């Protein structure tokens, strides 16, 4: 019986840890994608400036309020513009950035396939 109790306690503790970790994961994922605007070149996650500390507290609060990752990004985008996100979205300013690698990949593939066909012939 004692062993059961012990296992139960260990199970409880470990499950608490998991709960904490998953919330932290999302938080660090979000803060890594947010740019610290007063210390440019650093993410909010990396920075310890006053601005970044406040942003981290706010991300925590929004997560506790049940905001999703995208909703939090939208919240910051509305206030600071799209520049605050490290991961650029697909829009009219960034479509070349997203499509050029695919285009080069396709063209390169076409060249390789073509050269194979020519070789076979």
């Amino acid at each position, binding site marked *: 019986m004692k062993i059961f109790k012990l296992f139960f306690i260990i199970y409880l503790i470990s499950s608490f840890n998991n709960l904490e970790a998953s919330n932290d994961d999302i938080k660090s994922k979000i803060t890594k994608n947010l740019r610290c605007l007063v210390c*440019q070149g650093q993410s909010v996650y990396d920075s310890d400036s006053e601005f970044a500390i406040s942003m981290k507290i706010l991300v925590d*609060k929004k997560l506790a309020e049940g905001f999703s990752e995208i909703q939090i990004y939208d919240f910051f985008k509305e206030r600071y513009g799209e520049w605050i996100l490290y991961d650029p979205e697909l829009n009219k300013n960034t479509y070349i950035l997203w499509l050029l690698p695919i285009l080069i990949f396709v063209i390169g593939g076409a060249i390789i396939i073509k050269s194979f066909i020519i070789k076979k012939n």
Partner: protein
Amino acid sequence: MKNKLLPIFITLIFIIIFIFFYKGLQNTSIYTPQTKISNKIPSFKGDLFYSDETINSSNFFKSEKFYLLNVWSSWCVPCRKEHVLLMDLKEVKKLKVVGINYKDKKINAENFLSELGNPYEKIIFDQEGIIAIEWGAYGVPESFLIKDEVIIKRYIGPLDKKLTEEIKSIIK
């Protein structure tokens, strides 16, 4: 066919890359936020400085007058310089000066105000810096000119003589 196409593609790609980098040279890498905005004020909740009253954004900017919301702190050196101008703006009839006390200790802020005077009609106490972010502020000092619950203009950094004259002319 193959021999003709390949150099064309390569030069084309190089030209595209060149244009991109060349254009990129002229862009500044320092982010300057927009100063002319006309956004609705954000919704926020906060505690007032001199009372324990909690205020809500929906009834804070109700009056017909213009509002100047100033983000300040006692530890911020430029705020000290700016303070004289705020005291001056306090005398303008059509304007209400309100403050957000950003990441400050209450005692220090009180000393600051008793030393230099209090231009603010109301002060929101923002110890965690969260309300300032709700406003899209970068730091201290920063000011927002508000009319009818719309942000007309924002001033990043300390106000100076020229900017206060600008504010006065906007109000008139």
